[in-house]
Structures are given as C-alpha cells and as structure tokens.
C-alpha cells in the first residue's frame, strides 16, 4: 500500500512530453470540448469540461517544464500540486471520462485531451486516487487473470457448452494456427454466444484458429486505470502466448479498450513490435466477406442501428467494416445522428463501467444515447463491444426503453448459410 503524492507527481513528470506541452500552450479556453463531451452536454456542469480535467497536469507542466514557470516556483508564486487537489480531481479524471476521444476530435487547436487524460491517470493511479472499483478489477486481473475473476476452468466449461451447442470443436493451444483468439471476460460470462459464433464462422470460412489456455483474457484494466507497468504485464501475457504458439495474427474480440490496449498501446508498453499482427474480429469478418468466405442468408427485417464503440471506430479506425457487414444482414439499417468517428459514447468505457462511484453520472450521461435512439425509433441496436452492450442494456433498462442489443459477430453467425 505504497501509493503516494510523491510517486504520483514523479509519474506525471515522467509522462510529460512535447505533445502535452504543445497542447497546454495552445488551449484558448474556448469551451468547445465541453460541447463535444456527453458528461457535460447531459449535466451542464462546467466542471466536466474535458480540458479542465487536466488542470493539475497543466499546473505541473507550467511549474516544472517552462522557464517562467520554474522562475515562479523559485519565487514561490505558484502553489505545488497537493494530494487534496488530486483527490478532488479523481471523479473528473475517472468517473466523467471514458477516454472516448470525442473532445480530441472537436478541439479547434487540435489538443488530444484524451491522450492527456490517459497520461494524467499514470500519476493519479500511483498517487492512490484511482477509483475503488477499478483498483479491485485491476487486482483481480493481475492475481486471478481477469477483471471478473474468470479462470481457465470457467473458460473450459463455456468451451464445452458452446461445442455442444454448435457441434463444432473449439481448438485450444493449437501450435502454428493462423489466428489466436482472445476474449473479454464479459464475453465469457455474459455473452458466451460470441465464442460459438467464432466457431461457426471460422469453421464455415475454413479459418485455422485457436484459443490459448495461458492467455485468453483480452481486457486490460492497466490502461484504463493508467498504470503502464501493470498494463505491460497484462498485454505481455497475450504476446508471450501468441509468440509461443507462433500464430500469425491475434484476433481482438468485441471489446473496445482491449483493441486499443493490444493493437495500439501494446507494442509501446512492451517496447517492441509483435511477431504477429493484431486484427479486430470485425476487420477479419470483413476480409473473409470480401474473400467470399462469409456468405450470409436472410436479413433482419425490423429497423436496426449500429452503436459505434469509441475505441474501435474513432480511436481504432474500424469505421466502414461494420456498415458493410450490416448491409448483408439488415434491410432497414438506420445510422444514428453523429455516426462513425463522431459517435457519442455509451458512457461506460475507459473503466467507468468498473467504477461504481460513477454509476449515477453514467446513467445521466446515457440520456445522450437515449435521445439518439428516440429520434431513430429502431427495434434493435447492434454493437461490437461487450462492455458497450452491458452499458447500453443497463441504460435502456434504466430508462425502460425496449430496444434489444446484439453483438454484430453473433448477428452475422446467426445468418450464416447452413
């Protein structure tokens, strides 16, 4: 139990870099990031203005990394960061930020505020100001292997169940397979059908794939809480297992931050590129489809829409694939307002779902999604992130809206040709 303000400040000094300095030099306090952030638009509370969430980091940059800031420090003109201040900022940096990236897209001077929140969490976490829920989820991931405490036997039970269901064998620890799949624990527990869908699709498409008993957990609460050392340890499990099995690709599942952790942050966390490529399940499905290996039959007749998971679409670049895939299986596909890279968050990403302290705020923020859905009048909402699904279902239930939520991979699997 050795978190301390000293460690926190040291971490903040360590993560400071040219981009952050350029961002703090450019912010003109125009307030547009607030207009882009659902935590402000749904609460109208100015303290949720994204750039304001970085005030302590800005003060540290000013004091420690600018000439006149340093002079001010010598002359005692500026107050140092206090532990109370970091404590006060914890709800802003964690509860009211899902790292969705919308503010970074809106900022007229181009400040990547999401990047800075991610960096500020490096200091907040070791200063002991991460939310309780996220700390315990991180501990479970490190000690047990998954934020929801899923161990190998639980996975094996699900594998047997899905093998019975689909009549197909789900390969595990197959040396030299082309693809290695990893799953988010939410998929293992809440949406086991995803695993069955994989089996069916890969069987149909003749894809050589495997799971790994040593690394089946895709989520990475390390990057959500903002502790890169912990994130490294988590992502290294997947890398070691994949390189041991000598697979060519690792499939990132229907989980937002898992894709960001594995695809974009992983190599920088472990300090080297992988010996395999990372592909999101939707990217793979899209490849199989264009290779003619993913024939589907029949279409959903009821009106449906697609909720873009932020980490996958805006922060991941997988924008067109879901639309192409949905085109095959839906007759009445209606885009939400602000679709694609301008999407509005489900309110639960970036660790907010694991943070009970943020529940009430999250449900308030969900009104943005409610407004979008009310405008659309759809029956089903398809998405591609297990955490989004849970958060959307939770929100829809809270506002008793009868819109059903389904995963895109599952949907595709249901429409496979026999």
């Amino acid at each position: 139990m050795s978190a301390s303000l000293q460690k926190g400040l040291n971490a903040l000094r360590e993560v400071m870099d040219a981009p952050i300095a350029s961002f703090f030099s450019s912010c003109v306090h125009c307030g547009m990031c607030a207009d882009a952030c659902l935590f402000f638009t749904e609460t109208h509370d100015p303290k949720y203005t994204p750039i304001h969430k970085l005030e302590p980091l800005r003060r540290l940059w000013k004091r420690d990394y600018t000439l006149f800031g340093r002079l001010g420090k010598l002359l005692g003109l500026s107050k140092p960061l206090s532990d109370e201040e970091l404590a006060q900022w914890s709800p802003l940096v964690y509860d009211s930020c899902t790292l969705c990236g919308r503010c970074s897209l809106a900022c007229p001077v181009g400040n990547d505020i999401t990047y800075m929140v991610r960096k500020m969490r490096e200091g907040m976490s070791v200063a002991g100001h991460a939310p309780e829920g996220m700390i315990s989820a991180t501990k479970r991931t490190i000690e047990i292997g998954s934020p929801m405490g899923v161990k190998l036997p639980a996975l094996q039970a699900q594998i047997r169940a899905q093998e019975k269901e689909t009549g197909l064998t789900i390969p595990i620890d197959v040396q030299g397979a082309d693809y290695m799949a990893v799953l988010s624990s939410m998929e293992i527990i809440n949406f086991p059908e995803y695993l069955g869908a994989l089996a069916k699709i890969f069987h149909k498409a003749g894809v050589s794939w495997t799971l790994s008993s040593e690394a089946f957990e895709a989520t990475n609460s390390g990057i959500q809480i903002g502790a890169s050392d912990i994130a490294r340890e988590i992502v290294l499990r997947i890398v070691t297992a994949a390189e041991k099995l000598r697979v060519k690709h690792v499939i990132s599942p229907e989980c937002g931050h898992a894709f960001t952790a594995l695809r974009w942050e992983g190599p920088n966390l472990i300090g080297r590129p992988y010996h395999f490529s990372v592909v999101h399940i939707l990217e793979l499905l899209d490849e199989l489809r264009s290779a003619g290996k993913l024939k589907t039959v029949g279409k959903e007749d009821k009106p449906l829409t697609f909720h873009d998971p932020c980490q996958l679409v805006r922060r991941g670049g997988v924008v067109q694939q879901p639309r192409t895939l949905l085109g095959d299986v839906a007759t009445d596909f209606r885009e939400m307002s602000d679709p694609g890279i301008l999407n509005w968050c489900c309110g639960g990403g970036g660790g907010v779902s694991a943070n009970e302290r943020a529940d009430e705020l999250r449900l308030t923020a969900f009104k943005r999604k409610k407004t979008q859905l009310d405008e659309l009048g759809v029956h089903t909402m398809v998405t591609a992130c297990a955490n989004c699904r849970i958060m959307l279902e939770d929100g829809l239930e809270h506002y008793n809206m009868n819109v059903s939520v389904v995963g895109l991979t599952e949907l595709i699997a249901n429409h496979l040709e026999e």
Partner: protein
Amino acid sequence: MADETLLDVLTKRGISRRAFLKFCAAATSLMALPPSMASAVAEALMQARRPSVIWLSFQECTGCTESLTRSHSPTLESLIFDAISLDYHETLIAAAGSAAEAARENAMKEAYGKYLLLVDGSVSTKDGGIYSTVAGKTNLETLKEAAAGAAAIVAVGTCSSFGGLPHANPNPTGAVPVSDIIKNKPIINVPGCPPIPVVITGVLTYYLTFGTLPELDDLGRPKAFYGESIHDRCYRRPFYDQGKFAKSFDDEGARNGWCLFELGCKGPITHNACATTKWNQGTSFPIQSGHGCLGCSEPNFWDAGSFYQALSTPIQPVTAALGIGVAAAAAAGIGVALANRSTKADAKAHHQTVTTNDLEK
C-alpha cells in the same frame, strides 16, 4: 521710427481707403482668418504700432530668410515688410563686423521690451554653446541677451522651433530649439524647412495687427496654419480612402495623381498649410508635384525613418532586435531544454515499477 502706427505709414505713402480695404482683405487671408474678420483687421490695423523687429540667425542654412525675402520681392507684402521696421538682419544688413554688432545693440536698446525677436536656426548648447559663436559671443548668450528685451519671440523654421537638422542624431553641437532655452517669453513656433513664406508673413502680420500671439497648438504653432494635417486637406485624400496608391514615382498610379503613402508620404502626421496655402503663390506643394510630404514641420522629422519608406514602417531596421531576440531565446531555450531533459530523466530514474500495491495509500 518705431512708434508710428501703420496707418501713418500708409497715409504718408498716399494710400487710398480702397487700397487700405484691399490691404486688410489680403492681410486677413494671409493670416488664414475667415474673410468676415476683414473689418476687425482693419480696426486693429488703424492703431497698430510699427514694431521694431530683430532677426537673429544661429545654426541655420538661411533657407528661412530666403523663403521670406526672395519670394516676396516688391509685392503687397513688401508693404507689410516696410510696415515693420526690420532693424537688424545679419544677411540683409548692409553694415558688417562691429558696425553690424553696434546696429543690433542699438536696436535692442532703443525698443527695449517692445521689439519682436525673430530667430532662425537652432542654438548650440554643448560645451557652453562654443560650437556656434559669432564675434566671440556664443549664440546662446546672444539669444538670452536679445530675448531679455523682446516682447515676443517668433522661431522661424524647424531648426529654431524644434532643433531641425543640427538637432538630428547625433547632434554634435547639442543643438536645441529656442523654446528649450527661453522659458519666460511668449514664443510662436513657425516650423517648416523652410516654412511657407506666406505663413511667416501671416504670423508676423497677425502679431503686427493684433499685437498678441495667435492661438497656438501644444507645440506652440499657430493653429490657423498648423491646426490641420496635410493629409486632412490633401486633394489626393479620396485615393487614400479608396486604397489607390502609386507604387513608384512614375507608374500609372503616380501619373493619375494617386496617393503617395507607399512612397513615404508623411502627410498624415504633419501639421502645416501646404495643402491649402501651397507654395510659390499657390502654384503647388510637394504632394501636388508628385513627391511625398517629408513631415518637415514636425519635431525630429530627420530621425523619423526614411523619407521614402511608408509611415507604417519602422524607423530603424528591426533585424538587430530580431537577432537579439533569437540569441536570447537560444541561450534561455537551451538552458531550459537541458533542465527539462534532466527533470524528465530524473523522474524516469525515480520510477519504481508499479504493482497493484502501489494503487492504494
């Protein structure tokens, strides 16, 4: 001679009343007063005393004297000229040497306290004003001495008004305007390099007619002639307003009489009557002849940047200052860069691998 009224002089010369009326009308215009003032001018001229005038020339180029004398050879103004008794003027006086000095002493003694002292040229003050000495006496002394008995002083030309060319950087002789030395006498500044002849006579006529100073601006210049800027009364102003500028001295714009701002005209900040009274009996003035105004009736116009650079440009090149800025930035920049790198390296060094135990206090 000095106590006769002007009217005595005129009647002695057998001037008719119509002639006197014509004279007053001309004088009113000369003084840039509204024509309706002609009767008031006539009133004043009736009892105007003929003041004695002493003209002292110090560090000057005789341009002002030439401006006043040459251009008004035997004309109506000469009458005014005759009306004042110019008792001493170094260039014009026939006498020379000690006789000239005696003439000046005599003039000052005779009309002590009543004569009008005209000065052209700035006064050297460095090392006691030794750099401009006439007959063993520095201009500084001569000025103080002459000013003591003067009723009023008229500084003719930018040199005596504001220091002019001798005062320009580096000002080796410590040249200063008259107003820097004489503090206890009313001074009328009639700047210009040289001033417009009509303006000099206008100011003299005003003093001769009303015996008081005309209304002066904050630089001691008669508002009648220096109240408005050249730019305000310039006939090319519409072109300035429309943004039509001559690019070179003989391009299409210049031939069309467009505004000369781009060619360095300082009209906007120069107060003088050139645009209305004009030069050489209303023939023309610098801008009308196609050359920008130099701003010659303003203080320090010699040091106000090139005559051919626009008013909006810096007076001296800023490259030196830019250099200093860059050099200082490099020095401070490298310093803070090293400090930043060491702070960051230091933080990296103190990094202890974070485990789940480090997440709580």
